[in-house]
């Protein structure tokens, strides 16, 4: 019972990371494809502007996921990290390069430095979700059974490949949708069109990939396929589909804030559909939630800790997003760091 609850918490944390972290990776994807230093100047400006205050928070979700995994389902953690050694090791490297690249690009002045750190950030933003997706694919197709040694087969198989590509497409979609909204927020109408076009294209690509993934899972991971086409799994697939249509419709009209909600709806429903399809397994068809569950006392405490987190962290996160979307969070300029007085005046940039 408690184990099921914790499994739901784990799934929701994964969904939150897919949405929060995904938006972030997506920004990196569009940074990578923005073109040369001159032509990509404005998109990159927007990406920096939009990501800066929230990217660290978006990425802490991952730590939540890992902690719930090893505390609530230690065997799952052990199994996944043993079988998926290489993709997870590469994802970890990607995470470092990406975060550091983004953080270092900001204070570097010279073009060469900014190019180097920017490339680091952008390339790692695409590579990392691919490997995380591939690892998830390995789990979904049941290749990470207990006792599996790390091998290429565990993650270089049709399901993993498709999950990796879907992960990239998902991040691209989220990134583009959020940046479209940010472009409006920061008063850059030309960038609205720029990112709207990209959001629509990535939605199209994602749809195609999702259909292919459907065929692949039918052959390669029958349990998940069955779950996705029946019961709760199917329900969330339908929700994801409806949300995707709504996103497309909102993108084609004058973009509004609602498209963020629908885009998040697409990704969150898809993740939840996958989780529902796996029931009652954490790793189909070898490790059930009940078998993997940690000590009952720990699970109870984990539930309490989660509750406290919900009460304490959620308002804080809400406050952050509220302040951010209301333009209350602005970086200091060099002039403000230098000046001995006041908070306004010279050097205040327009557009905020």
């Amino acid at each position, binding site marked *: 019972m408690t184990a099921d609850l914790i499994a739901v918490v784990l799934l929701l944390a994964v969904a939150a990371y897919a949405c929060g972290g995904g938006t972030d990776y997506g920004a990196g994807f569009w940074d990578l494809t*923005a073109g040369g230093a001159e*032509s*990509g100047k*404005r998109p990159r*400006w927007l990406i920096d*502007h939009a990501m800066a205050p929230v990217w*660290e928070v978006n990425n*802490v979700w991952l730590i939540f996921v*890992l*902690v719930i995994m*090893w*505390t*609530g389902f*230690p*065997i799952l*953690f*052990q*199994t996944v*990290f*043993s079988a998926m*050694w*290489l993709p997870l*090791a590469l994802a*970890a490297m990607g*995470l*470092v390069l990406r*975060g*550091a690249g983004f953080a270092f690009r*900001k*204070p*570097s002045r010279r073009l060469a430095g900014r190019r180097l750190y920017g490339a680091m950030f952008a390339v790692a933003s695409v590579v990392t979700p691919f490997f995380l997706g591939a690892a998830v694919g390995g789990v979904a197709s049941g290749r990470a059974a207990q006792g599996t*040694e790390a091998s290429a087969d565990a993650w270089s198989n049709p399901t993993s490949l498709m999950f990796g590509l879907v992960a990239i497409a998902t991040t691209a979609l989220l990134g583009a949708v959020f940046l479209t909204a940010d472009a*409006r927020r920061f008063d850059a*109408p*030309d960038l*609205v*069109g*720029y990112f709207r076009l990209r959001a629509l294209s990535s939605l199209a690509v994602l749809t195609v990939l999702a259909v292919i993934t459907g065929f692949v899972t039918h052959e390669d991971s029958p349990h998940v396929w069955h779950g996705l086409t029946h019961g709760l799994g199917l329900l969330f697939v339908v929700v994801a589909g409806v949300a995707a249509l709504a996103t497309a419709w909102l993108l084609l009209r004058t973009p509004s804030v609602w498209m963020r909600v629908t885009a998040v709806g697409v990704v969150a429903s898809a993740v939840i559909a996958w989780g529902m399809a796996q029931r009652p397994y954490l790793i189909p068809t070898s490790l059930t939630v009940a078998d993997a569950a940690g*000590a009952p*006392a*720990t699970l109870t*405490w*984990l539930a309490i800790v989660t509750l406290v*987190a919900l009460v304490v*962290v959620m308002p*804080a*996160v809400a406050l*952050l997003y509220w302040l*951010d979307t209301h333009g*209350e*969070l*602005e*970086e*200091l*300029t*060099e*002039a403000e*760091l*230098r000046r*001995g007085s006041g908070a306004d005046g010279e050097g205040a940039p327009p557009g905020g």
Partner: protein
Amino acid sequence: MSTSFHLLTDTPAQLLPARELMAFTLASHIILVPLGVAFPFITLVMHYRGLRRKDEVALLLARRWSAVMAVQFALGIVTGTVLSFEFGLLWPGLMGRWGDVFGIGFGVEAWAFFLEAVLIAIYLYGWRRLKPRTHFLLGLPLPATALLGAFGILAANSWMNTPQGFSLDSEGNPVDVNVWKAIFTPMFGPQYWHFVVAMIITAGFVVAGVYAVGWLRGRRDHYHRLGFAVPFTIAAVAAPVQFVLGDSIARSVFHKQPVKFAALEIVWETDTRVPEYLFGRLHEDGTVSGGIKIPLLDSVLAGFSPNTKVVGLTSVPADQRPTATQATIAHWAFDLMVVIGSVLVLLALWYGLVWLRHRRLPASKWFYRSAACAGVASVVAVECGWIATEVGRQPWIVYQNMRVAEAVTSTRSTTLWIMLGVVMAVYVFLFGSFLVILLKMRTRWRLADEQRAAGGAVHAPEADTPYGPREPLPVGDAPAGGGAARAEDGRP
């Protein structure tokens, strides 16, 4: 052949690279930890001073420190995430068997960390738009979240030192988990407070050290005085406290982990009237070469009497205690930490005495030279403390319950060696970049201050861009498709 050689041939080949990889990534991450835990606190003190006394220079310092914090916090978050991956990648055996016993501390740590990330983002980016008072108040819980985060990590580590809160079933698997007992283990209190104070001292001395160098180079304005005095005072107050806490944790180790204590003090046979060795090297046969031997002192330090019985390494079989080499490493790390700590206390006393007698900062050049070194020295002490506690626990990953060799991944050692190489290259590059960027920021700010002092052109165009790329919207060069969009998309 020697015992340690025998033990080495017994262990899986991947143990050494896994250990080196974990050690390297942790040792690197640990450099950022004092800044992450205590730097926000120091900055808030400066910020408070600025608001309270309407001191623009103090506010300027707080603002600039928060710019440094932005870069440092980002690097800390990513290197910290790598560590949580490594728990699974390197030590799956530990997490698989014990994750549900000691993992809950990390649960607390995760949400404390989340809160910290939120608050720090608001603090870093709230300078300009939020009302000064609101901004400061929203930053105020930061030190508390840092303390809470440290709580989780230290709960886990102290559990590895003195595991409890479970019983073992017939197969040796933990059952009947008592989470409360697993968090509040005997070593938790001593380790936690020792750690927190170490972080405050280190962050204080590191930050003050930067301005001590400025003082030595002749920059003696209000800006440098303040930048030095606030962090240095915080560290100087904490240093004597640490002396007491350090003594208390050593005594806890003596009582709770006698074999580790024996390694830290290289005590071979259980005995009374045990001498203290400062440094020196332990050999496989129990002899000690080199070092300074002080008769009776170890017994006196452990139990206030020369007749205190100190447990020696030979009290347990060779495969349940650190090897002579490991004991020597732990011993050196321990002694070095104690020596550095003691010198730092003397420095703090020097500062305190001058302040009490003359109500001013010390004027001696030697004081500032020592202060400039104190930052580096305290980072070294932190590393040493960590080495002492980790190496002293060998060969156990969970003291007396699981060996490091049982926890290690089955991934081939070649893969791990390659990974170690890659990680080292990446980290050297990242930490090098971090340092270069900090130095560049410093140079930029100094130039700006000098220009301003000279009343010259403050508005040098290249100096006017933000420290982040939140520069004004670049005009022109609209990206592909931008033109059309501009036409059709007006604001509502």
